[in-house]
């Protein structure tokens, strides 16, 4: 309560807006004042490094695309949400953790609006788009783009037919009985996360148990993994293992849902 009152009284949480020039076009940067030391100089103006980093990224975002990226400015990692319609770039901390914390403490409406705006705009310009633009790769995500000057539809169609032909050939492959048995066994293991985890754990320990010629250690580790596996299976079925909760009690309640941040 004291912290909340202190933040509210001091007006500590504040949202700052600054204009920057991006290739002759004005963009608005919006961020909480906790980021000011990384972004502003002593005069309260966007500093040179922030200007360069942000402007370089904004130039790569194609018109009309909502973009999202992680930028490093003055050794601080910030997330940037780019909204080209309004020529706005919102900067915030990873996970919006700091802003959400301050927003809760201060109850500041502007900060809440900042958080909401970030949450409501899923990106359409993704990492692969950025990589494509940066290294001038063939824009395979764009259906209209040509590939090496050739019609893409032909390439896609040929690839599809080639895949079908390969799969047809694969159908002729006849695995041995042992291979089929192994495949079935591995498929069962791979389909069950708990089983996969215990098998990997068990197999990982095996090389260190070679000293044990009596087989006691291998048996002990096997039984330990089987016990853990049984617990996981029973948890999944909703029957809590009796040995785990002595004296008997109710099964543990499900975890609280994660907070929004």
């Amino acid at each position, binding site marked *: 309560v004291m912290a909340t009152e202190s933040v509210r009284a001091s007006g500590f949480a504040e949202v700052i807006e600054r204009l920057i020039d991006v290739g002759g076009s004005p963009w608005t940067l919006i961020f909480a004042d906790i980021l000011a030391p990384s972004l502003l100089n002593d005069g309260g103006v966007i500093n040179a490094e922030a200007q360069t980093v942000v402007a370089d990224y904004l130039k790569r975002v194609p018109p009309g695309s909502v973009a999202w990226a992680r930028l490093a400015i003055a050794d601080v990692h910030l997330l940037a949400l780019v909204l080209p319609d309004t020529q706005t770039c919102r900067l915030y901390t990873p996970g919006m953790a700091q802003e959400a914390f301050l927003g809760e403490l201060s109850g500041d409406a502007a900060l809440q609006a900042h958080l909401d705006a970030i949450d409501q705009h899923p990106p359409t310009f*993704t990492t692969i788009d950025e990589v494509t633009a940066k290294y001038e790769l063939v824009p395979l*995500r764009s259906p209209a783009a040509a590939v090496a000057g050739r019609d893409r539809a032909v390439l896609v169609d040929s690839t599809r037919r080639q895949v079908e032909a390969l799969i047809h050939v694969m159908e002729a492959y006849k695995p041995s009985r042992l291979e089929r048995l*192994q495949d079935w066994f591995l498929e069962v293991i791979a389909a069950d996360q708990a089983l996969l985890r215990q098998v990997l754990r068990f197999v990982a320990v095996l*090389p260190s148990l070679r000293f044990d010629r009596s087989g*006691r250690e291998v048996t002990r580790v096997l039984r330990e993994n089987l016990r853990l596996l049984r617990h996981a299976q029973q948890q999944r079925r909703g029957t809590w293992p009796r040995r785990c909760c002595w004296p008997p009690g109710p099964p543990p309640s499900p975890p609280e849902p994660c907070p*929004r941040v």
Partner: protein
Amino acid sequence: VATALLLATRATAFAARALPPRLTGAVVDRAVGLMAARFIVPDTPAEVMARLADLKGLGRDASFDPLGELVLTQEEAERYADAVVKLIDLAAAHYGGSAHKRVVNAAGIPRAQVSVKLSALSTYFNPIDPEATALEMRPRLARILRHARSRGAFICFDAEHYVYRDLSLDVPAHILADMPDMEGWRDFGFVVQAYLKDAVPFVERVVALARQRGHRIQVRLVKGAYWDAETAEAAAQDVPAPTFWNKAETDIHFQQLVLYILARSDALALAVGSHNVREHAFAEIARARLYPHAPVIEHQVLHRTAEGLAWALAAVGWVTRDYVPVGDLVLGIAGRGVERRDVAAHAIFGASHPHQVGRMEAPAVVGAAIDQPGRCGWVAEPLLGDRAIRGDSLGSRHPWPHAKDADGDR
């Protein structure tokens, strides 16, 4: 299935209690060995030669991978170098290669091939000190390179964690530049990981090296096997991950790199390392229709992990090579399972039956990467970019698509 698994677990637990420990240990040893022997070749000459003969009968070659990386002692590094030399000898003896006789496949690459993890050759594998690393590694690597040349074998410098990526190019280039007797030797290649956002500059550096040396260099294009480690390390250090967050983006980048490498065929030869039937088909079609002058493409798969696919690739007459781990079975399968969990999902728990591979990559979704913007293959979520870093989608809501990669790409 859940009930059957529960019953099987109980039955196994009962057996583990009831049987004498010595018998339980023997059964476990036999079962693990039997499974491991499918994917890993024991490091005895007889086993290696037998596996080479098997592959030859199937129309495929091998790239041997002596197990081990990031060694801690000089003895381990020496042992690894000895293992590489031994495998070169065995492969060369099988194919009949020598200093004056390169036995090559249709792609012009020597059939005898060993993949080398440079971090296993040095106890000082330090990315911030490449000169000292090269100095420390030089005697062992130079011995391997000279031996490979004397036996007409090919050395592929394997990719490892991102932090070592540049070393895997700089150290061999530096050492080769210091070996006048190796001038003109061309039988070496590098690995490009498509899950890295900055794969293109690495390819460009290989192009520069190829042009400087005056010959083509083969690059094995893979998707990458260290995604779990890279993203976990990046998250722990609060820095951007060097990899894409989404499998779909890696898939698109892979195909972009296929085109990028084919477009530079004066300097590069392409090897496609994937268990995704679409990637192999795409590369062949792109070469046939767009870059007909590019060298023949080599197709690589993890040994007996997607056997149906490997069998089909060879059956249609494409140059096919298995990536064959060699070493201690139990140690090997443990290492593969734990160090590379994302590979483990298919390397250990792979699929050899065509129906399984077909289900992973059904014709209905083939080409989806370039048909449907934002969607690709089995991934049903729209592309998220780096959104997964955000607290609201990390872990609980984000599906970690790479970790659930089902098409078994390295």
